[in-house]
């Protein structure tokens, strides 16, 4: 099975998830319920489950080219999960075509958005 995301623990409390390919729809559409999808399972196993109470997850969208609503559903589910841990979700490196859909769906009202990974890390490290 080919990974769709690689997760790196920066510290005990901060983890970065970087999506590895422009189009991850096969990992989004394989199941109807988002918690059952391959994408969510990869993110949960690689990042969310390992973060402690108050942890911070940074999602790097730099390589993503296709942002269907199913992807936003994953973000919503992650936000639910991280709020349950009293944690935060930061989003960075949104390409214009992704940012368009993300902004339209009200993403900036729910997520902290940064232009670069360095800025997201700086915010997470405060």
């Amino acid at each position: 099975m080919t990974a769709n995301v690689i997760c790196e623990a920066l510290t005990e409390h901060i983890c970065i998830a970087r999506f590895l390919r422009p189009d991850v729809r096969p990992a989004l559409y394989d199941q109807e319920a988002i918690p059952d999808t391959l994408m969510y399972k990869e993110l949960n196993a690689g990042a969310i489950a390992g973060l402690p109470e108050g942890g911070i997850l940074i999602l790097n969208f730099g390589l993503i080219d296709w942002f269907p609503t199913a992807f936003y559903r994953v973000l919503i589910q992650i936000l639910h999960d991280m709020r349950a841990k009293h944690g935060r979700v930061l989003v960075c490196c949104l390409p214009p075509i992704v940012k368009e859909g993300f902004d339209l769906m009200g993403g900036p009202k729910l997520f902290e958005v940064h232009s670069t990974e360095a800025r997201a890390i700086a915010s997470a490290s405060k």
Partner: protein
Amino acid sequence: MPPTGQEPPPNPGSGRWPSPFNSGSAEDKSGWAKLCNLQRRILPQIAPAVSGYRLFLAYRPAFVVTGDYHDFFRRPDGNTATFLGDGSGHGPAASMLMAIMRTILHTHDVHHDPGSTLERAGALFHRLIPSDLFMTGIYLVLAPGGRIQWAAAGHHPPLWVNRRGRLSAVDLAPVGSVLGFDPGPYETVSWNLEIDDRLLLFTDGLWDARSKVGEPYGRQRLKEYFAGTLDTPLADVVNGILARVTAHLAGAEFEDDFTILGIERTA
């Protein structure tokens, strides 16, 4: 509400059929056909007649049934409102979301100012659906004299082109979060249309329709076409958009449902 005279689309359920329909048992096929027909019966096939305005509607499911939801309401204040929404995903699962939202909007006292309507409907919707699902939507009220009010939840604002062909800038600041997540406040936006001004409401399946090489049709093409067709009858503009998007796909399958509602102030 009386119809506008707009002819129903010949086959709104013209999207691709799921494999169970093509290869399943006769019982499967019958079930899909019933679901498709039921949805056609509960979704308006044409826009209503609204005093002072001309409306033209088109929709196209990517699947046999649609997760897009469009509807029209006679409000307690006598004005007409429209809701245009897009359930997350598409196909039968997304069609459940449109059915839930339809029930809320038809059976609950939610029709106040557009922002309050979305807030109230969103709170009910939030309680009824799984946490990983949502719907985007726009609720727009047509009042006499060109007075328009709308609010949007994770949904594109209306495109507004005036009679001189000037397209208003799209401001996403009033757009609130999607329906089904945190129930929250939504901003009501008020516009005053002049006679012959036009609005275009649509779901994202339209501008995000991708060609075989993955190129989206894009909002820019949509805006340019809409702003440049003021001399064209509204129905032809809406049908022209459908034709252009279909041509852009060049044989690629529609990935998502889409719905278009054109509105023109006539008096």
